Structure formats: structure tokens, C-alpha cells
């Protein structure tokens, strides 16, 4: 059996960044850019006595889903928490840039049928954001990624997948929010300020980071699904993420914009209404939001097996 077939069976959380990257596209189609063989590691880490990785903790490359080139960015949480430094940041930025180059190329080559070959970007996040050992370069790279995401608007879809142990926090939390479509599993978490940081800055009364159930309820996949902050919730298997991606690639590009949360005046007005609601409700727990959206027994809902949860969960209604 091929490596690809083996990878399909893996749980997404247990898979490595490289396994996720090659497994999310069609069998044996993934080509890595600036992989370990190129030894583009961080020169800044050894100065501070840290070990390096030859891929700097980020796997980038291109694969296919059908006829469509899919540019993949996959972060490795086992290497310094998936943090973004100068090299990894540049790999992220340029992957989106190359996808946009491919977009121009297919448009030129196939002016009448380019949509069936429309490139896409998939980012598998597993990160807390900036790598402190090279914090300034990491921060500047975040701004560049955001800039490229805006460049992709109206041209190619940018899709987020979050199914890792580390989750997606810090600056990468808003990069993910800025993409078109978000896919998570129950294990995935998405936010800005991690629970430990909130507890450290604002105290245990604000957030008890040791309370794992609370942590998952606040930023976990189920909550994000109910809030419409993730579009699709899938089982924790590489195959499940890949199948979901295949379905997403069937969405006509003109409709992709409808999956977004932010990025236009209309969407900002919708989110502003949600903030007004939060100001009124002052939720102390995400369960209060679940209830507000019609889930009468949030605890029971939370206990349901994945498939049952999907069938029963009532989500925030989108007003546009």
C-alpha cells in the first residue's frame, strides 16, 4: 500500500504536518517546496541554543484535487509549537503568491475553461503564532501572509483546516479567520489569545486555563461550528479532511464569498451585531451562546457522538 493510503487512515491530530500535506490532496500528487533536503533552517535558533529543523516546522508544496492545483501550507506543532519565524513565514507567504501565479497562468492557458483548473490554497494550522526566538521577523511575516490573503480575494479560494493538538492561536488566529472557508475537527481549537495567556494577564477569575473542558468549550471545533466561525466540522481522520476538501472544491467560485465571516462592509456589520449581542448577554461560558441559538441542553449536546452532534446542533443564523 502506498504511503498516501496509509495516511488516509491516520487520525488528523496524530499525523505529522508532512502526512497531512500529502494526504489532503490526491494520491501521489504532492510535491514539496523547500523541503528538508534544501536545509533551509533558521539561523536564529542556534544563537539562542535551540535545535533546528531542516523544514523550519512548515511543509509547503503543491498537489492536485482533480484537475485543480492545490497549494498546501502545513504547520508542524511538534517543532517549537508550530511557531512562525523568518524562514517558515517566507514559505507561507510565497506559497500563496505561487498559487496566484498559477491562477494567472491557467487563465492565460485556458481562457474559456480556467475555472475547472482554478488553483486553491489550503493551510493546515498548528501554531501559537509568532516564534519568540525570532519574534520581529515572525511578526512581519504575519502581516505579509495577511496581505497575500487579501491578494487572493476574488481570484482563488483560501481554505483553512484546523485539526491539531496545538490549535491555531496568536496572529495565526486572525489569519485563519481571514480565509474563505474553515474546516475543523472536534479536537481543533481556534482563537486569538490562548487560555494560559488570558489567565496570566487577567487572572484565574477571567479564565481558568487548567479547566480543559472550559478550554475546549471556548475555542474548540464544536463551539466554532455553532458560532459559524468554522464552516464544516469533520471526523478526526486525514481521509475525512480530504473528502471535505474535495466537496469544497465543487463549490462554484462565485459562491465561495458566502462562506466568509469577515472581509466586507456587509460582513463587518453582521459581526458588529454579534458583538452587540455579546455586550447584552455577557456570556460567561460558550454554553450560554449555544442555548441562545436554540440548543436547550448544551451539556447533553456536547456529550453526543460526533455524527449525532452534527445532526442536532443548532447554529447561529447568518443574516446575509
Amino acid at each position, binding site marked *: 500500500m502506498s504511503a498516501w493510503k496509509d495516511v488516509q487512515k491516520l487520525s488528523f491530530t496524530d499525523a505529522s504536518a508532512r502526512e497531512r500535506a500529502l494526504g489532503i490532496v490526491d494520491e501521489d500528487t504532492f510535491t514539496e517546496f523547500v523541503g528538508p533536503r534544501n536545509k533551509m533552517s533558521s539561523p536564529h535558533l542556534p544563537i539562542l541554543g535551540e535545535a533546528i529543523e531542516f523544514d523550519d516546522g512548515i511543509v509547503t508544496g503543491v498537489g492536485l484535487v482533480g484537475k485543480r492545483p492545490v497549494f498546501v501550507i502545513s504547520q508542524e506543532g511538534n517543532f517549537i509549537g508550530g511557531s512562525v519565524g523568518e524562514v517558515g513565514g517566507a514559505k507561507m507567504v510565497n506559497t500563496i503568491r505561487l498559487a496566484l501565479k498559477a491562477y494567472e497562468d491557467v487563465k492565460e492557458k485556458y481562457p474559456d475553461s480556467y475555472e475547472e483548473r482554478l488553483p486553491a490554497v489550503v493551510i493546515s494550522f498548528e501554531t501559537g503564532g509568532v516564534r519568540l526566538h525570532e519574534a520581529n521577523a515572525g511578526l512581519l511575516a504575519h502581516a505579509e501572509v*495577511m496581505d497575500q*490573503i487579501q491578494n487572493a480575494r476574488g481570484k482563488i479560494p483560501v481554505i483553512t483546516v484546523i485539526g491539531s493538538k496545538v490549535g491555531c492561536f496568536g496572529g495565526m488566529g486572525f489569519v485563519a479567520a481571514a480565509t474563505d472557508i474553515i474546516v475543523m475537527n472536534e479536537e481543533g481549537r481556534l482563537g486569538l*489569545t490562548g487560555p494560559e495567556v488570558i489567565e496570566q494577564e487577567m487572572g484565574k477569575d477571567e479564565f481558568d486555563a487548567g479547566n480543559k473542558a472550559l478550554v475546549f468549550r471556548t475555542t474548540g471545533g464544536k463551539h466554532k461550528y455553532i458560532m459559524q466561525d468554522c464552516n464544516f466540522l469533520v471526523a478526526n481522520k486525514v481521509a475525512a479532511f480530504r473528502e471535505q476538501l474535495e466537496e469544497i472544491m465543487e463549490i462554484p467560485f462565485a459562491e465561495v464569498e458566502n462562506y466568509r465571516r469577515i472581509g466586507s462592509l456587509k460582513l463587518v456589520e453582521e459581526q458588529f451585531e454579534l458583538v452587540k449581542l455579546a455586550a447584552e448577554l455577557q456570556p460567561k461560558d460558550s454554553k450560554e451562546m449555544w442555548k441562545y441559538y436554540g440548543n436547550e441542553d448544551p451539556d447533553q449536546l456536547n456529550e453526543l457522538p460526533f455524527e449525532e452532534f452534527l445532526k442536532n446542533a443548532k447554529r447561529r443564523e447568518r443574516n446575509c
Partner: protein
Amino acid sequence: MGIETMIGRGRDAIEMIFDQGSVQENVVEQYEFDAEIGPGAVVGTAKLEDETVTFIASDAQAINPRFNVVYFGVIGMEEAYKMALAVYRTMEVDKDKPLEEKRPIVLIVDTPGNGPGKIEEIIGMNKATGAYQLALAEARKIGHPIVAMVIGRAISGAFLCHGLQADNILSLAQDYGTMIHVMPLTSISRITKLDIERLEELSKGNPIFAAGVNFFYRLGGVEEIVENPEAMRPLIRKHIDSVRELKVSGQAEKLGPWGRGLLGDERGGRVLRKKVIELMDAQYEDIAEKYLTV
């Protein structure tokens, strides 16, 4: 003249930078903003040497009565969406104007962070700060000159939110207590377990992790350092003009985050970025045909 910090003085900066008597808060042409909502964000219209601009700043004295983590210049959810709205309204009122007449947006930067609270995480603070950044990026790309002026604190995610999507970034000199960093060296010391003296020594030769305006300058993260507050007004004017000139002459790639990447290489502070990009480009060229002609 004694040196006085500008930290916490966003409103003073507005008065110092724009034409006397021209500042109108909570207004962008026909659009008005509710002063009670997002009190930590100060948005409005002013004139700079007779040209109409939109300004966006933080008010360090304001306390948001609805969100208890939002004070001292923190950008909360209301603040970030209010800032984003100011940008969208600016685009809207100028939508029929040619490139050379798009009104500038001036960001006055003094913020310690994005709202670090539980409600913020339940509702999604990441969306709020992301929304504002996308609005700025869109406005920049359709031609509005955006200049950020760091007067005080430009800390980590808050600087990404309010500043780093600008065309050009100016910063008051370090002597004024200006702070640009992800984390102070003391926190990096705790996390990396390296002692502070050693980190200070290392940071002299490598601007990549240490806190400070001058390091960001070397990395291309700040276009120009402003020596004193009196120089803010003429230099913001100068940068608006040069940004506009680059846009009109089709050289926008020299601006914004990508332009600062080029600048980081030029100044010798961020040289690996370019190597990585060039290697990737070459590797992609070798295989592109296979992926585009399936």
C-alpha cells in the same frame, strides 16, 4: 527641551498632526459613528495641509464599560469593528474618485494589545482584528495612501492589527519611550531560559528578536524614524505624497508588508526571506507545467 513620552496621548497626537480646528470625531462624510460604542477607538476626519484624511487612533484614557479587558488603549471587539467600519466608509465615499484622489488614512498607533478575555474568545476576537486588517489591506490596494505613525506602544498582535497593514510606517524615536516589540526581553529570557545580559549582548548583532524601534527599522518593519513629535506632521505629509506617487506610477509592490520585506533585505536585517522565496520560485518553475496541464 525635556523629552516627554507620547504614550497614552493619542488625542494629543491628533491635535499635533492635523490642521488646527479641522478634527471631526466620529464622522466620515455622511457617515456617523456612535461615540459610545468602541470608546477605545478614535476615528474621524481631519485635514492635513488642507487635504481631507481619515484618522484612526486609540484612546488610552477610555474604558469600555461592556468589555472589562478593554482599557488603556487595548483594541477590543467593538474597537476593531469600529476601526474597520471607518476604513470601509472611507472606501465608499471615495469609490468614484481616481487613484490620485483617494483620501489618505492616517493610523496613530499606541496600543498594548487585542482584548485578552473570555467573552472575546467565545465571540471571536480573532475575527475582529482580522476584519480590520482586511479592510486596511483592501483600502491600500485600491489606492488609499495609508500611513501609520507609531507614537507609543506597538505591541505584537495589536501592531499587526493597527499598523502593519499600512503602506508606510513611521515611528517616533526610541528616546520618546516608543515601544515596538512582540515581547520584552525579560519575557523572552524567561521563555528561552537565557539570561538577560546574554540576550542583550546577542541582540546587538541580531535585530531579529530584540525589542525596539531601531531593530524594526533594520528589519524593514519601519520605513522612517521620526526624531521628535514636531516632525510628525511634515513627515506624515511627505509619506502620503510619496506613497501616492508610487501607486499612481504602478509601483505599489514597494509598499505595505511586501514592500517592507524588500526593505528588510535592503537594510540587511532580513536576508533569508528573499533566499527562501527565490528557491521556491525556481522549484515551482520546474514542475509547474505538470500541475497546470493535467
